[in-house]
């Protein structure tokens, strides 16, 4: 396996605040990794470090480069969408495409043109005249027309309606992801993307709470829906988190004896969102 991103003891401080605290992980080629964390957990800081936008302590290698010191070389092979609002509002769509074509060796302007032709984005329009969704489509078209090895998406669909969001990820999967490329995505809308992920990572208070492939998740985590005396028995098995849904107790377990649990109620694989809550609450408790 080839590691595209390799972090060892990565730490970032802002004054006395520890934004990223001694984090180590690897991202392999061809994966779609979802990075989740509550606000202020250190997600954005971590992404900035990966993108070479901020310096950090520890060892960090992205596509074999030191991201902070070899940023220009790195940016030829990385694309990122940080937020839908970052495209300059004054520029015309055609100017934007020309500019990227002139400065990015891996960008295909004809491919971008084809992708935009499928949208309502007119080439002579200025970005400020486009709706939020159209700006996102424009940005995505630029990114999809760029032959990059790693794509980083930080809340790419923030503020978009559900139709645009679904389309955004559908396009990404059908037109971009080919198993050779790697995608790192953060979003609060966990449930919308969990079915496209191959890996997930939870971050909280600057530390990694969970780093797992989606396949391995089912083997380690279980959710039990139970009630009454069975709930008491299950509780003794120390669930990560417990909540109430329609009068029933729902408990999330990590690395537990499934056969014992199976007799106590309905057993299922927790959704990423529920697991996220369980992990974060468990960490804070």
């Amino acid at each position, binding site marked *: 396996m080839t590691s595209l991103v390799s972090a060892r003891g990565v730490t970032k401080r802002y004054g006395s605040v520890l934004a990223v605290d001694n984090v180590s992980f690897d991202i392999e080629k061809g994966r779609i990794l979802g990075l989740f964390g509550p606000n202020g957990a250190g997600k954005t800081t971590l992404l900035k470090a990966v993108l070479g*936008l901020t310096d950090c302590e520890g060892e960090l290698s992205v596509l074999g480069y030191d991201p902070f010191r070899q940023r*220009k070389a790195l940016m030829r092979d990385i694309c990122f969408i940080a937020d839908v609002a*970052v495209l300059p509002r004054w*520029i015309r769509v055609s100017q934007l495409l020309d*500019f990227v074509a*002139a*400065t990015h060796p891996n960008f295909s302007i004809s491919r971008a043109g084809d992708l935009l032709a499928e949208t309502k984005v007119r080439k002579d329009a200025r970005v400020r005249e486009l709706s939020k969704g159209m700006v996102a489509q424009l940005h995505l078209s630029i990114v999809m027309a760029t032959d990059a090895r790693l794509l980083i998406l930080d809340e790419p669909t923030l503020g978009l309606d559900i139709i645009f969001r679904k389309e955004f990820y559908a396009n990404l999967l059908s037109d971009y992801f080919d198993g050779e490329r790697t995608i790192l995505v953060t979003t609060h809308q966990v449930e919308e993307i969990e079915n496209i992920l191959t890996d997930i990572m939870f971050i909280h208070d600057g530390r990694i709470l969970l780093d797992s492939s989606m396949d391995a998740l089912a083997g380690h985590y279980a959710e039990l829906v139970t009630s009454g005396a069975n709930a008491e028995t299950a509780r003794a098995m120390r669930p990560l988190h417990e909540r109430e849904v329609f009068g029933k107790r729902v408990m999330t377990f990590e690395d537990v004896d499934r056969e014992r649990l199976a007799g106590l109620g309905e057993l299922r694989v927790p959704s990423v969102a529920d697991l996220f809550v369980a992990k974060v609450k468990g960490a804070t408790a």
Partner: protein
Amino acid sequence: MIRTQIALIKREIWEHRSIWVTPAAIAVVTILMAATGLAIGEGFRYAADMAIVGASNVGEIERRALLTGALSGVTFLFVFAMWVLTVFYCLDSLYAERKDKSILFWRSLPITDTETVFSKLVVALLAIPAATLVGIVVTQLANLVVMSIWVSGKGGSPGHLLWDFGALFDIWGATLIFLVTVPLWLSPFVGWFLFVSAFAKRSPLLVAFLPIVVVPMLERMILGTSYLAKAIFVRSAKMPLFGDISPEKLFDEERMALAAENVSLLSMIDIGRFLLSPSLWTGLVVCGLFTTAAIYVRRYRDES
């Protein structure tokens, strides 16, 4: 590298349309004023009248001086506008991208911060003066046409009186040298404004001009000296481009006429003196230091 630089400079011109709109607007207004008879001075009319009817002793030298004067008048308007434009351009160039948050997009492309900041310096020192030069030359040519029509109407010969290419190339040559050297001479301000643009959290105009006023005052109050005030004043007012121009040299009192060798603007320019002036080179070093600081700030500032 070159391709990136050209794309970056084009980008600046797309974003800051005032770079060409301002000289174009001044050109249109002054040409309209000339066409409606507002811009060309009464002195010129009078002298031209005299020359046409052959009733005066207006000789070749005076005619050339009048032509040079009539055409070069607009230059000062353009140069003043150029300076205002450069100040606002520089202050906006690294501030606007932070304000509208597009900096993250620009930085997602394989372009170094050095390349980006350098392109802004090139625009301030070369592209804005180039647009100004085009504005000036176009305006002068249009004014020549307007004056030709007027002179013809009076029965004079514009070909002889106005279309004197010796004088025209003298004016254009001098204007070109002026527009290349003025930005170099004032480059420490350009560097300072770029730095403020990269650095200021808000109101870059205030952040840029307040120290220029306050720091020399503090120097005077605390140290009792005024080196900074002098440095700023000399830089703003005394550019060592022109040779020794004294009234005696310009005007020959015995003959009550212009002295012949001074009709040429080019002959007034002493490029050697300019290039050998230590102030030019210290100024360029200061500009380089501020520009480096601007690159450093764009590179290392963490916006979060």
